[in-house]
């Protein structure tokens, strides 16, 4: 009825608890190195932001008409990363996919941290970041409100909703596991975890409502997977800039988001599972499923890339065709375009070979390429479209400044800071759910033995 994860090694509920909790609060050499590096990068980015706040956005590499640069590129990148987590935790939950269980907690954590990282950029790319509260509807003596017709306003609502829902979903999923940690710890640590666990005791009543609410959360989060990146894509598609103003953007962005997110899950979880010795719970079978997901979305992306060109040609819209042909052949950014195509369309094809998608090295390396490629996809969309807009008199060239690179590096530091912290303080595999994959203790079995 219920498979164990590995039939050859009968696991038990208690063993699952022990295996997962074992790694908590055990900072080892590798962890510390990564954590400190991330912290240093975060501080460096913060310092760059301080300089930018003080002196203005002129410290960036903006060159009119290219008024958005790698802040927005990285923003979209991180929002996209987040989508895989929600896809795995919500949509795969609703469709009762079994491979979800082992990876969903870490993916969801990745989602929350990715969205937290993404949320930084709309603030720090502002000319006047200190006025960011004007983005939110609050009654004021000036009778002023925001422009709900603006895609950026949609974005504010979409991303803040997404963050709220993901964070709640993540936390609710954690509660039973936090209770497990509580019950396996002592002293001050136990006190902290017992507060976090909200007094969860695993009573039938709790489980009953919990399961219902969890389903609703999943049902609410599932459309967000589609809507959030659609809204993000409208940031571009709603502006009339050639290269942006396209109806293909929402599905294309969503597919790209899932693609990059699944790749990021592989990138993050593959080392994690080897480092923690969790092959019983997260193993190559999971990664193979993720790789298949990547293959699917990579195909969709390849189609979308092609379709952009087809529409640019078929519509005979001179502005569209000019930007698309220039993007692939212009001397300024063609290299970025071909990096994108290579990483997103060609390299993942190796996963069509089963040995390569079940090989940890190939999984890890290709997933890194996908991450790079997806960053460059956004770079192509944001920068090269703006660089080659309607008016040829303004065509220009953009390259990020050291401040922009610094803040981007800082954002990676910020993400990994939280993620590394997560690995140390929260169970990175959903223990209560993994138990559903383990054969329950049955008296008959014991007696037979």
């Amino acid at each position, binding site marked *: 009825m219920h498979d164990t994860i590995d039939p050859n090694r009968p696991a038990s509920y208690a063993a699952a608890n022990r295996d997962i909790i074992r790694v908590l609060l055990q900072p080892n050499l590798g962890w510390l190195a990564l954590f400190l590096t991330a912290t240093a990068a975060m501080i460096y980015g913060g310092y760059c932001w301080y300089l930018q706040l003080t002196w203005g956005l*002129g410290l960036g590499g*903006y060159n009119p008409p290219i*008024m958005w640069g790698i802040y927005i590129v990285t923003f979209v990148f991180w929002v996209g990363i987040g989508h895989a987590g929600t896809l795995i935790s919500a949509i795969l939950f609703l469709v009762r996919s079994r491979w979800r269980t082992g990876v969903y907690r870490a993916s969801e954590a990745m989602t929350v941290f990715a969205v937290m990282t993404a949320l930084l950029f709309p603030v720090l790319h502002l000319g006047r970041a200190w*006025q960011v509260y004007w983005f939110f509807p609050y009654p004021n003596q000036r009778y002023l409100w925001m422009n709900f017709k603006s895609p950026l306003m949609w974005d504010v609502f979409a991303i803040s909703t997404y963050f709220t829902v993901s964070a709640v979903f993540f936390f609710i999923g954690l509660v039973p596991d936090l209770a497990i940690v509580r019950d396996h710890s002592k002293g001050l640590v136990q006190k902290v975890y017992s507060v976090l666990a909200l007094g969860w005791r695993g009573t039938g009543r709790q489980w009953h409502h919990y399961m219902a609410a969890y389903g609703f959360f999943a049902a609410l989060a599932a459309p967000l997977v589609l809507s959030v990146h659609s809204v993000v894509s409208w940031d571009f598609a709603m*502006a009339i800039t050639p290269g942006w103003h396209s109806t293909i953007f929402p599905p294309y962005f969503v597919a790209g988001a899932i693609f990059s997110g699944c790749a990021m899950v592989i990138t993050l979880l593959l080392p994690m599972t080897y480092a923690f010795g969790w092959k019983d719970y997260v193993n190559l079978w999971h990664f193979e499923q993720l790789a298949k997901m990547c293959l699917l979305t990579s195909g969709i992306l390849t189609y979308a890339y092609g379709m952009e060109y087809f529409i640019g040609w078929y519509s005979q819209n001179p502005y569209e065709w000019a930007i698309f042909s220039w993007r692939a052949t212009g*001397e300024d950014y063609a290299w970025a375009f071909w990096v994108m195509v290579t990483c997103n369309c060609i390299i993942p094809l190796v996963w069509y070979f089963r040995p390569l998608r079940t090989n940890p090295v190939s999984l890890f390396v290709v997933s890194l390429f996908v991450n790079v490629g997806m960053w460059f996809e956004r770079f192509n969309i944001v920068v090269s479209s703006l660089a080659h807009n309607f008016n*040829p008199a303004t*065509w220009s060239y953009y390259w990020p400044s050291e401040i922009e690179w610094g803040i981007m590096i800082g954002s990676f530091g910020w993400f990994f800071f939280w993620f590394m912290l997560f690995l140390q303080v929260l169970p990175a595999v959903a223990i209560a759910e993994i138990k559903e994959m383990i054969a329950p203790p049955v008296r008959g079995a014991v007696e037979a033995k």
Partner: protein
Amino acid sequence: MNLHRRDFLKALGLSSGTSAIGACGIDANRYMTPVENVLPYVVKPDQVTPGTPTFFATSVLRGPHAHAATARHRDGRVINVGHNPMAPGRPSVSTSELMELQKHYSPDRLQAPQADGAATTWEAGLSTLATAVREARAAGKQVAYLGAYRSGALVELIDQVTEGHAVYWEPTGYEAEVAAAEALFGRRTLPFYDLGDADYILSFGAPFLGSWGDAAIEDRYALARDPNHGHGIVRFALVAPFRDQTGVNSDDWLACAPGSEVLVARALAARIASDKGVALVGQLAGGVTLEAAAEASGLSVEDLEGLVAHLTHGQAVVLPGGASGDADLAAATYLLNLALGAAPGRFHLGGYAGPVSGWSELSALLADCKAGKVGVLIVDEANPVYALPDAAGAAEALKAVGLVVGVSSHTDETTALASLLLPTSDAFEDWGDEQPVAGLRLLRQPAASPLYDTRSLGDVLLATARAAGLQAPEGSLGFAAPTWREYLAAVWARDLHQPAVDGAFGDFWEKSVIQGFWQGDAGDVTPALVAESYAWADAAPVAGDLVLLTHAHPLRKDGRYANQPWAQEVGDALTGMTWDSWLEVSHETAEALGLAPTGKQQRSGEFPKVSVTTDGGTVELPLRTRRGIKAGIAVLALGNGHVAAGRYADGYGVNAAKLFALAAGSLGAFAWRGQSAKVGDTGTLVKVATTYSNYDDTDQGRQFGMLVDAGRLAEHGDAPAAHAGELTGIHHLELDSRLAERDVEGFYTTPDHSTYRFGMTVDTNACTGCGACLVACYAENNLPVVGKGKLAEGREMAWIRLDRFWETAPDGTEQMAFVPMMCQHCGHAGCENVCPVLATYHNIDGLNAMVYNRCVGTRYCSNACPFSVRRFNYHTYHWPEPFNLQLNPDVSVRTVGVMEKCTFCVQRIRQVKSAAKDGGNFTATVPDEAWRQVPACAEACPTQAMTFGNLNDPEGACSQSRKSGRTYEPLADIRPLSAVNYLARATFHGDPTAHHGGGHGGGHEAAGEHAATHEGGSHEAPAHEGEAHEAEGHEMKDHHEAGSAH
């Protein structure tokens, strides 16, 4: 005006609060706010109401450059300069007036007298000067004056003080023209070219739309170019090795070898004179054949025949050469004009008649200086140390003078050598008069109190003359007048006041001060030949593989405005380059040199750095390729490379003057003759500051710039055509009607504006690329100057971008379309939808409004703007004192992080609307005529290419222009419903032989007839015209191809 310095500062206090602190930094909506003082006048001047602008009629520039202008005075300071609507003719000013305005507030101004580098008092300074003058006279030495061009009463005073030892010299001045006029006509007068009635202009490179800065001729040119002025559009042909900002306005360009222009002009004159039997002209021109001229110039005989046909065909005017043209070229063009019968209607001697010294006089003065014959040298804004090649020895000459006195508002390379500096009041603080053309006298009055401890040059001279005990000649006014103002009034009373007509002098004077000019009889201005022979110099074209040519920069002129940040910051019309000098060559030449930059290099602003070597020396500078330059020619503008002219001039670019040989041309007139040069690669790239990154210089067929056939325009002008935009074929109305036919509503409704829908029409046919609109915008709207480093990063703040596109006409010629691109105030604006905080929206008057202090700086609007006309405040900029005094108190000073853009000068719109209500009628609609020049750019445009108006008024100028056959709106196909429509540039590509005086054959009509002949000329005879020149048409095409470098 009795404003005192004190009053000025009080008024300053009153208003400084309105602009000193930025719109978005500290503001009174915060918990705590800084207290501002409100300072009242002690005694308020009658003319001034705090908070309301006062306009003073005045004249800002001097000598031949002067125009009737008004200074916009606000709360004790001048904040802008505009035209004087009372003055005769279609009034306008040039960029130079605005440069003078910024010069007025320059932090580099001399603020107090200096003796040997140390501050001193006026009493001590004047006493030093008087003593030196007395001693010089006693020793039999000269008291000499060296200045830029001056006219009017001041010249009389200078001449009396110096006993005639006065030299008025400018490096790119009019000495060649004046010398030629003297040789031919016996009068040292500048000719006046009346282009308004011309239908064919042949120029040999005269920068009459550029660095001449002559608003009058630009205005007349615009009239001739206007399809609605009664006959067709003037056709403009250029014979020159390269097209400068004036030259790119030409319809035909014949790229001749440098230095051969004079032969071409003489050959044409000789040929036409012999055709028409004007014997004396033919005799003077000498027997140069077309063949000889063709051989020397590299043009074909057919080209020249074509020119002959055009010139003799209608009402042609011939203009002289540019900076490299010497007196021979001027003389040849005069003869050509005479042969054509252009005198005295289109060519006469009613131009500037004030003193214009030649190189012979200047070199004589320098020689006298070196010989120790000069006891006192008064230097007044002439800068020979900078402007002359080192071989002239100007610096050594000055060192040999007993006392060099700098009387100037600024220091420069020459006054840096002066031992006594007496700061003079500038044109905004001083009295004066000017006589730019015959029969017009402009009166200058102070529009503000002097900023510093400065005195009028007239007062200095009067005081010196009195203290030195100089004797004025008999019958002159003498030096008794206690002040310069009274001296000036005495001159006007003597020369201009006619009691019988004008009544009492007091009334006459008051009227003159109020209107700012006196107009009288120009006298006899007919050019009558007095010479019987003319000694033509040997006119061999300049030898060399690569010839370096120069010209005065349209904004920085000969270098006099190099220290004005606006002159440095506003991009060059043809290349967009700022804050620098650069070598211009054609792309082919660059390729031949192996230096052609890649597109990516250029887009990222990295240009190859080259070295240019002539006999005069070597400089290193960036290389910029552009069209409109003959192969084998390199062009380097004058005006940069200062070493002691102030903080915004020193160290920027190179001084082109130092590369040129000291070669007096014919008749002793100085000319910047071409130099054989070597261009070497330094192997490095240099980051340049450019406002324009489109090095292809075309609009990629996107119809931002448009050409229409001038021939078709000739019939109707801009009268409403069969359908709007029938000549251009693109206009949103067309799209609207197509939608209507199919009964399709646009997704969004057209916005409804009940009283006003403000709009603008920009006539690209009239736009000459002078940049006055940009400078005026900087002045009016408090645009910060970001400097070279930040500009290289793309941080420019200009609200108008002078887009310029080479358009290829059907006959293969390349025509420049200047498209000043400002906010189009779209009805369906891409920017408005996307702003998350409603900082930009469509207001009730149809303006695309931008509320700076609501902006949070997402820059999304800029990304969504199809015209890319929005500007972002990357930093908060600080106006160095006293530039802040020029800030317009009606416009916010923007701070870091907010977006900004053209507002159609909403502060002026508000002012007009508010003023209309002052009478008590709150609901009246201001008529369209009152709007036409309301925005600063429209006001400043010397060719009136910009017209502002209310599109809700169907009879308004803008509404009417939208029905014209040549109206178009860029990107009409994405349907932004722009409030700005452009009128296409007209060219003659449909008929290479056509121009529109042509109906009456040989063009033998006498002067004065033209008004009558034009009535029907072009209307009746197009067929005849076409037939007559069909055969020549093919030949003409050839020369276009040969003539274009591309």
